[in-house]
Each structure stands twice: as structure tokens, then as C-alpha cells.
């Protein structure tokens, strides 16, 4: 495996993404008038427009543009960020224009769209900036009319002088407002005063998603742009031994075939690019291309070997402690009746509907990139180092994303596109096929969990968890000799208070298969292990699983979620031929509970009749978007639990496309009901926390119905 010498990742704190997003809270509260660094203006803007603050741009005509600094991949930032700004700025959602920021973390703070962080890391600043902007506009109007500020108010993009009824639109006031001193403590509305926030407003991007007008990365066109398709080593890190481009070059439209490199953090992946004048010509050229790979020098893994190795580690090593309290080892050692089982979760691919793609234009002294991108700042950092161009001259434009799920937070595909552009000397769009997208990684790592526990007097006395699975941060230079927080995201947190003796440890396990974030990251698998095992403990204690959780989850938040789930699902009144399962997980500062109801399928196996989900994400913006995210999380969680997995043979993925990596379809989806707990606590994440409870709630329901405990994902509902 070739090391990438241009990139030094060791200094970086990659925990920003999967952690609490705390780093993003330092997002600047500044205005251009105070000398804030406006490095590059979004290209859509003309010079006459006033950038009142990084998120608010006002045209002299009165047209308001709100900047979305994060990626829009379905989770709704394109609507939610403006919904926050519009509230305190006092503009109508129908009257605004929304644009994406270019990558510029000095200006916008963290832009990595991951860890369900967009709202929770920026809403307080957005409220304050918008309210300050409103106060500036009011002050400008008051000065213009020579009236007291207190006699003026803002509404629908205008300032109105109450006594006289005089009115000016923001466009008339913006220039003057931009020269006034910025109020440091603008007056913020109370939640009860909100007109937009907490209302289920219709998404402003929806109409463009029903008529084909919306431009995703793959739809973006740059004058003179060529298209490329790249053949890459199916074992990820092999070298091009030789290639024969003769036939490929004969395909009409194919212009050039050459070797190209793709930086994957600390490593280099090689490929052979076919550049053509259309996507189809590039794809046809690639089919005609012959490449011989040298995939020697690194271990090739197969799936059974991976899980066997993990199992061995879990039975021979203690691992690095992530969390410990009390004396779980001693307690468990004395027990004659402890449970000791292993849970197993598979590797998964992201397969966003829009396959990976990226446009790059290497211009000599600058680089411009367009694409479906979750992490513009990371791309700037890495491309800048790799191609030795100042970071400010690496311009990263985010298009809409046709799904991301963590895959599009990687820096590999832009790096490769820049490499291709540099060689051809012009703009190029590198298009990944579905097969490339599904099989070339990085993947959600497959993880095994050894769970030990014992019950005393109907309550959990001691719990001990060990996990063995690849650590995503190791690909990015994370230390291997100490544990890191990313793997323990959402691991058992709400149970800490009630369990005297517990420990969670991470046993180092590495392969040569690239892994990375996949929606809800480690929480997506951690939840399955511990919420299934808690269910086993409840059974061992002879307690109702919901009551058992009520006894052990003491936080008020959890209690409310449990009460709500019980109320809406009819848990207590279930019939004999119905299986009910519950799971509650906490990640990215939100608590979510699912109850799944199953019954015997007359055609064999089990069918899911209904899923009830209750989310507490604290302060929130748009309840309808929350509903949508939880519905989608349930569907995605269902697929990962029951219909698809990635397996390897000699480091090569055995699946290819949707025919052997089948996603759930409309005919396989249960009824879903979502409830939001009203809570004014600090905002938590929304895009991911709805996923982890589904798998354990489902398998717990199957246990309730059939007595069969499922400890390995995925499983088939048809053959349970």
C-alpha cells in the first residue's frame, strides 16, 4: 500500500465530525464591516449586493439571499438554515433566494456536513446573526427617517415606522446598515414567539425536485468539460502493472487513457482513466480497457476470516477501555449465571442514489471543484497539500447531493478528479458507475461485540462490552494505541447512571479494506449490540422489556420517550400473535426510541406490521423534516438489518449493484409513525439518530414473537 507523502493527517482532529461538533461552535459572529475575512464571494453574486453577514446578502432591489453553508443531501439544510435565518431576520420564506456557500471555514465555521451537526452546531449563531442583522436594518431606517429606533419594527423584509406607517424594504437600507456598529447582544425571540421555526413549513427545494430542474453534481456542466471513467484496483491498493488502451482508444469519443492516482487520506489508490467527450463514450471506452493489477504486498481478506479474527480477539484480549465504572471484571468473574454472547454486524456500502462523481478544473495556480460534496473544508486542506496550491485557491463548490450518508465526506474522489484534470489540462467530470460506487469503498466496518452481563434482584448488576472492528479514524492517521471517541458514539450512554459496574472496550482490529462514516457511524451498529443485549438481560430478569428500560434509563428524556412509546404503540395491550420489540438509543445529542410490531407471515417468516418512533432532539426547526428523516432512517436501518450486506473474497467485494445489494422497496416498507417530544433543550442531531434503534427493536420483536434471538445481521425476514 503506497503512502501518500503529501498529506499529514496526524495533526488533525477528525473527531470533529463524529463527536459533538463542538468545534463548530466557535463559528464566527462577525460582519464584513468589522473586517471579517470575506475571501471569495459566491460566484452568483454581483458586486452591488450587500453581504450583511456571511449568511445574509441583500440586493438593492430588496431581494434577500440566504447562504446555506452546509451540504444539502436530503436532510434539509437548504431549507432549515434559511428557516432559522428568516425567523430572526423577519423575511418571508417565499421571498428568499438560497445559495450554497463555497468552502470557506474561516467565514462560515465548520462546513463538514456529518455527525448530524448542521443545526445543532450553528443555530445559536444563526439566530444571533440574523437578529443582529434585523436590528441593523431597523437602526438604518430609524436614522434615515430620523425617528427613534423603538418606534420601528421589521416584518416581511421591510422596516416599518409604526406611528407614520412609513415603510422601506431591506434593499434600501442594507448599505447604510452595513456601516453601523453591530449590536453585540441582539434581542432574540422566545420559542413561543416563533412564526417560522418549529412550524412544518414545506421545503423550498421540493418544487425543483419534482420537475427535474435541480442540479445535482452529476448534472453540473462546465464549458469545455470532458467526462472520465476510471478503472480502479478492486482490491483497493494495488498498483497498475500494465494497461492496454488500444481498444479503448478506438471507441468513438474517447480522447485519452492514462494512469491516475487517488489520495485516500494517508494512502494512494491507483487507477486508469478513460477520458471522452460524453459519459457513455467514457464508460464504453472503459469496458474496452484492459488493466493488469499488482495487488501484492498487502493482505487480502475474506469475510469469514474477518469475523473469525474478531471473535478470536474478543475471546483473548481485553482491549482499550472506552468507559469503565465500578468493578465489572470482578463481579462478572464471581457470577455463575452471567450471559456471554457475541453480536455481529456486517460491512455496508452507502449507495446513495447519485453515484459518486466530481468535476475538477486544474488551472495551474488554482483549482476549482464542483460536486456532491459533504466536506468542502477537508477537500481544500488535502487538495491544497497534494497539489501544492494555496488553500484559498482551492475553490470548492457544493452542488446538491443525491444522497451522501457519509460517503461524500471523503476526499478521495475530488482528489482523483483533480489528478485527471491536471493531466488533460481542462475541466473534467469523473463519473463512478453504480458498481464502482458500491464496491470500491470506503465501507461501514463490520463489527463484532462480545457482551457479558449479570442480573441481581431483577436489575443489571454488571455489564461488560468489548467491540472488535475497524476504526475509521485509523485511515486518517488516528492513534492506534489508544481508544478514540468515534467508536463509542452512542454506546450505552443513557444507561451509565443506573449500572454500577460496567465497561466498554475497543479491541484493535485492522484490515486493508477502507472504511468510513456511514449514517450514524458506529452508533448504527453499537445500538444493535447493546439494545439487543439489554433485552436479553430483561428476559433473564423476567421483566417486561419496556418496564426494564424504564427502571434503568433514569434520564427524564428517556422516561418521556418510553411513556410516549407505550402510549402510542399499545405495548401493554398486545395480542398473543403479535411480537413487540423496543430499543432506545442516544447519539449526536438526540434520544430516539422505536417500537416494532411483528407477526407471522402466512407465506413464511415474519412480517413487520408497524414501527413507532419517538424522537427527542431538543430545540428543533422543522417538525416535518424531522418526521421525514426518521422515516428514512427506519427504511435505511431496515435494509442494513434485513436485505443487504457487503462481503469480501480476497479483498474483492462480492456484490456489484442493486441486484445483489438489494435495497428495500416500497412493497417492503411497514407503516411508520413518528412522534417528536417537545423540548427546549439544546438542539440535537436529526439526520442520523433515527436509525440505530430499528435493528434491535426489530430483532427484539422477533424474539418476543418466536423466542428466537437474532445476534447476527443481516438476517432474512422470510426465513426467521
Amino acid at each position: 500500500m503506497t503512502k501518500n507523502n503529501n498529506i499529514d493527517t496526524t495533526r488533525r482532529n477528525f473527531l470533529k465530525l463524529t463527536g459533538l461538533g463542538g468545534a463548530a461552535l466557535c463559528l464566527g459572529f462577525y460582519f464584513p464591516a468589522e473586517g471579517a475575512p470575506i475571501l471569495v464571494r459566491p460566484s452568483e453574486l454581483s458586486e452591488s449586493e450587500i453581504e450583511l453577514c456571511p449568511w445574509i446578502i441583500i440586493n438593492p432591489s430588496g431581494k434577500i439571499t440566504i447562504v446555506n453553508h452546509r451540504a444539502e443531501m436530503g436532510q434539509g439544510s437548504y431549507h432549515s438554515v434559511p428557516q432559522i435565518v428568516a425567523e430572526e431576520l423577519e423575511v418571508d420564506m417565499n421571498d428568499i433566494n438560497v445559495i450554497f456557500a463555497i468552502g470557506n471555514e474561516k467565514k462560515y465555521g465548520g462546513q463538514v456536513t456529518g455527525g448530524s451537526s448542521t443545526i445543532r452546531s450553528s443555530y445559536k449563531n444563526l439566530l444571533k446573526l440574523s437578529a443582529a442583522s434585523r436590528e441593523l436594518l431597523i437602526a438604518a431606517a430609524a436614522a434615515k427617517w430620523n425617528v427613534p429606533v423603538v418606534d420601528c419594527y421589521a416584518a416581511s423584509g421591510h422596516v416599518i415606522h409604526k406611528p407614520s406607517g412609513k415603510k422601506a424594504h431591506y434593499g434600501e437600507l442594507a448599505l447604510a446598515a452595513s456601516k453601523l456598529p453591530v449590536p453585540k447582544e441582539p434581542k432574540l425571540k422566545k420559542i413561543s414567539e416563533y412564526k417560522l421555526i418549529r412550524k412544518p413549513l414545506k421545503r423550498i427545494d421540493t418544487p425543483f425536485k419534482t420537475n427535474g430542474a435541480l442540479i445535482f453534481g452529476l448534472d453540473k456542466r462546465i464549458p469545455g468539460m470532458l467526462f472520465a471513467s476510471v478503472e480502479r484496483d478492486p482490491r483497493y491498493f494495488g498498483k497498475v502493472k500494465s494497461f492496454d488502451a488500444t481498444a479503448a482508444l478506438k471507441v468513438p469519443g474517447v480522447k485519452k487513457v492514462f494512469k491516475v492516482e487517488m489520495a485516500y487520506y494517508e494512502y494512494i489508490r491507483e487507477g486508469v482513466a478513460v477520458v471522452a467527450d460524453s459519459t457513455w463514450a467514457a464508460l464504453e471506452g472503459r469496458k474496452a480497457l484492459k488493466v493488469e493489477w499488482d495487488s501484492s504486498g498487502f493482505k487480502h481478506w475474506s469475510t469469514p476470516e474477518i469475523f473469525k479474527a474478531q471473535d478470536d480477539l474478543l475471546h483473548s484480549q481485553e482491549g482499550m477501555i472506552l468507559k469503565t465504572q465500578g468493578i465489572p471484571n470482578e463481579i462478572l468473574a464471581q457470577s455463575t449465571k452471567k450471559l456471554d454472547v457475541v453480536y455481529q454486524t456486517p460491512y455496508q456500502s452507502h449507495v446513495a442514489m447519485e453515484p459518486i462523481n466530481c468535476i475538477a478544473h486544474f488551472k495551474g495556480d488554482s483549482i476549482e471543484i464542483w460536486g456532491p460534496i459533504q466536506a468542502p473544508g477537508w477537500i481544500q486542506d488535502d487538495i491544497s497539500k497534494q497539489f501544492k496550491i494555496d488553500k484559498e485557491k482551492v475553490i470548492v463548490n457544493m452542488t446538491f447531493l443525491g444522497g451522501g450518508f457519509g460517503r461524500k465526506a471523503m476526499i478521495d474522489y475530488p482528489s482523483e478528479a483533480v489528478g485527471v484534470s491536471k493531466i488533460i489540462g481542462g475541466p473534467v467530470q469523473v463519473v463512478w458507475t453504480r458498481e464502482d460506487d458500491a464496491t470500491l469503498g470506503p465501507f461501514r466496518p463490520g463489527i463484532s461485540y462480545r457482551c457479558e452481563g449479570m442480573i441481581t434482584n431483577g436489575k443489571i448488576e454488571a455489564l461488560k462490552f468489548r467491540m472488535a472492528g475497524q476504526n475509521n479514524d485509523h485511515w486518517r492517521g488516528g492513534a492506534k494505541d489508544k481508544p478514540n471517541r468515534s467508536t463509542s458514539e452512542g454506546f450505552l450512554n443513557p444507561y451509565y447512571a443506573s449500572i454500577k459496574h460496567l465497561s466498554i472496550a475497543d479491541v484493535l482490529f485492522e484490515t486493508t479494506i477502507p472504511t468510513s462514516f456511514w449514517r450514524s457511524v458506529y452508533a448504527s451498529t453499537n445500538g444493535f449490540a447493546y439494545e439487543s443485549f439489554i433485552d436479553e438481560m430483561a428476559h433473564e430478569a423476567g421483566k417486561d422489556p419496556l418496564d426494564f428500560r424504564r427502571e434503568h434509563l433514569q434520564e427524564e428524556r428517556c422516561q418521556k420517550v418510553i411513556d410516549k412509546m407505550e402510549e402510542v404503540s399499545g405495548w401493554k395491550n398486545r395480542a398473543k400473535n403479535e411480537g413487540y420489540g423496543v430499543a432506545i438509543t442516544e447519539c449526536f445529542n438526540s434520544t430516539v426510541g422505536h417500537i416494532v410490531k411483528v407477526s407471522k407471515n402466512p407465506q413464511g417468516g415474519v412480517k413487520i406490521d408497524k414501527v413507532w418512533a419517538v424522537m427527542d432532539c431538543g430545540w428543533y426547526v422543522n417538525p416535518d423534516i424531522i418526521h421525514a428523516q426518521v422515516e428514512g432512517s427506519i427504511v435505511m436501518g431496515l435494509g442494513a438489518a434485513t436485505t443487504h450486506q457487503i462481503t469480501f473474497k480476497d479483498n474483492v467485494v462480492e456484490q456489484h449493484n442493486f441486484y445483489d445489494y438489494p435495497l428495500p422497496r416500497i412493497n417492503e416498507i411497514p407503516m411508520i409513525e413518528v412522534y417528536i417530544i417537545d423540548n427546549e433543550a439544546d438542539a440535537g442531531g436529526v439526520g442520523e439518530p433515527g436509525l440505530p434503534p430499528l435493528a434491535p427493536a426489530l430483532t427484539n420483536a422477533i424474539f418476543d414473537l418466536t423466542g428466537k434471538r437474532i445476534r447476527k445481521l443481516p438476517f432474512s425476514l422470510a426465513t426467521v
Partner: protein
Amino acid sequence: MIAVILVSTIALAFTVSIHHRITEKEYIGITPIKKDSAASVAAFKQVYKVLMSPRCLNCHPKGDIPLQGDNNVVHSMQPKRGKDGKGIYAMKCANCHQAENSPGLHTPPGNPEWHLPPADMKMVFEGKTAHELAKQLVNPELNGHKDLQKLIAHADDGLVKAGWNPGKGRTVPPLTHAQFKKAWITWLQTGAYAPAK
């Protein structure tokens, strides 16, 4: 001379059979050019192997969803037969299955006539024993109202022949088309005897 008369009688019998139920004895008895139960049964055993191969079986399913693959699994995305056997709504066979095979592995195989048997004449192969299938094949009420001529001609039907050009990565039936056709005609012309099981 006798044979010729017999054939024409059969043809008549098959034609009228749409309206008049024919007993098993009648149509098995009247088909042969030269009755030979041993040769007929032997030929059908060959025929049966082909008909039960994925290329034939997959589009003659028990239910209203075709099967797919060499392992006869229910077609992904579960397209429904529809009245005419050509699918329904946005899920008509020809929406994916082109006039010819699509290039590459795991792409839809194609034929201009791609369809299932229609809803009123399902011609189910799946789960049928050789005996059951043989009887079904010569019963005009279950075989799409085919007489002997039409049955013989069916060996050269475009969609039947497509079984031997199944697209990349799919196995062909265990006999060549020529061998199948020979066995098929032999079976029919020696009396269309059904194997005992």
C-alpha cells in the same frame, strides 16, 4: 394414409376443443404419426429437462410474478403478470426487457415478445411433475389453445428460442435447441404420452 387422416382429425379436434372438452384419452390417442409410448415418454423426459430449466421455468411461474436467475428466485421488484402477461402500469416487461439482450452481466435479457403467459392461460411449469406437465401441454384448454401443428411450431417460437440466447452469465437449457426440437416433435408425434410420474 391413415396417419394423414389422423393428423387432420387431430387438427380438427384441437380446433374445436376451445368449446368442447376433450378427454385425455382422445387427444393422447389421436396425435401420433406413429404411436410409440416408450419412445414418447423417453422423448418427454428430455423435453421436461428443458422446460424445467431456468430459461423456460422462470416465465412459467406458479404465482403472478416471474422468477429469475439460475436459482429461480422471485424476480426482484416483483413485476406482476397483468392480464396479457406483459406486466402492468410502470412495470411492464418491455420497460426493461428490450428487443434484444442488454449488454453485460446482470442486465435484462431481451426479446421482442418478452412476456409471461396471460392471466387466463397461465401455463404453469413451476412445481409440475413430468406427468402433470405433459398432460397440461397437450390440453388445449391449458396450453393456449394449441393444436398439434401449433405445438410443433411452438418449438421455433421466438421467445422459446430466446432461451438459448439468454444473455451473458445465464446458463442455457441442458439440450441444444435442435436436440430439444427433435425431442419435442418426437414426443408429440409418437403419441404425446405422459410419463407415469
